[in-house]
């Protein structure tokens, strides 16, 4: 297919799709409407189980099985990346030269690293109360570690980031999610049913039954996943080079 023909097909398809979409837009309930039956029921169920953050309740209680699916997508894509970006036989590992970093930048990185790490943990820990949760906090905590690469050099990051530990952590937290779900089955109810633990007092850290546990498992899973992903990318971009035979 030539480029010209491809553009014509694209234009036709795009125009058709656009027409259908716009027609659909005008058939939808108006933006800002007052009818949200599912939302109202979800809020009601969440308050009955004393989870202050309704969104966390939907994620880790009412639709916990769906989150298990999301987590397995996450896990699989990390696995895929690790397999795709492994070091092949014709590649060798070069030692990257340390990077000079201006003093204020280095200091900033070293000061903000613990602050960002603590904020990440804060976001995970308060997931069932205030906005936040395992997904967001995990990413923040993982990003915080990489300030060492940005503010110092790659070898400093490698020293504090034993990649094997994070790989084990990834697997452990994924199975922790499953085990928490299975505990429900053993207790005589359903998989991932939130009936195991007392619901606690509304708006405290231990409220919401199994929501904080699943939230923490997801937080650890996401943090480990992002660290592993970025480690593979950094290895490829910084360390691994093709063996040209002459160098």
């Amino acid at each position, binding site marked *: 297919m030539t480029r010209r023909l491809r553009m014509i097909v694209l234009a036709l398809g795009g125009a058709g799709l656009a027409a259908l979409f716009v027609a659909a837009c005008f058939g939808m309930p108006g933006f800002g409407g007052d009818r949200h039956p599912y939302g109202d029921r979800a809020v009601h169920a969440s308050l009955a189980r004393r989870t202050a953050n309704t969104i966390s309740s939907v994620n880790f209680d009412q639709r916990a099985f769906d989150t298990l699916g999301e987590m397995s997508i996450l896990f699989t894509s990390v696995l895929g990346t690790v397999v795709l970006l492994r070091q092949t036989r014709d590649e060798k590992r070069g030692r990257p030269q340390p990077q000079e970093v201006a003093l204020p930048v280095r200091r900033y990185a070293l000061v903000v690293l613990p602050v960002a790490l603590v904020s990440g943990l804060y976001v995970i820990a308060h997931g069932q109360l*205030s906005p936040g949760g395992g997904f967001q906090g995990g990413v923040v905590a993982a990003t915080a570690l990489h300030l060492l690469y940005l503010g110092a050099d790659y070898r400093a990051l490698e020293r504090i980031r034993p990649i094997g530990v994070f790989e084990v952590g990834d697997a452990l937290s994924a199975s922790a999610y499953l085990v928490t779900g299975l505990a429900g089955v053993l207790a005589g109810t359903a998989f991932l049913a939130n009936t195991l633990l007392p619901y606690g007092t509304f708006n405290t850290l231990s409220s919401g039954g199994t929501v904080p546990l699943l939230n923490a498992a997801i937080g650890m899973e996401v943090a480990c996943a992002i660290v592993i992903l970025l480690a593979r990318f950094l290895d490829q971009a910084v360390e691994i080079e093709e063996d040209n035979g002459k160098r």
Partner: protein
Amino acid sequence: MNGWTWTATIALGVGVGAAVWGVVTGPLRRRVVAQNLSSALAAPGLLLLAQGYGRPAYVDLALLLALLGPVGTLVFARLLADDLAGDPPRAWAVTLAVAGYGAVVVLVLCAVTGPGRAMVKLLVVGALLIGGNLVASRALSGGFPGSRRG
């Protein structure tokens, strides 16, 4: 809508609109500065919105943006150091003006909230925002000298 959200509307429309314009056009040195300023312009807007909606919980968003926005700029500063070395960005006037805007918003909100935990959080956000913004600007204009793969 109340006064806070109206202010936020104007501030976000003008500020972030300018950042989008800056990041789309011009030479690379202008684009990285616009990317850096986008977080410094959006975070005070988020603080204003938190106040306007009467939801202190929304301050977390500004906190995260103030933490991670400069980290994003450091990514570009570090990995584009070679490209920026020949043509470093010089936009201290704009950077300082934006930092001043952030400081004014934080101080006004502090005066409104009054002393307490909320005020401490606001001050932390303000310090991270302004400090991070200035350091990120420094990193862009020669923060990684003599860069070779590393």
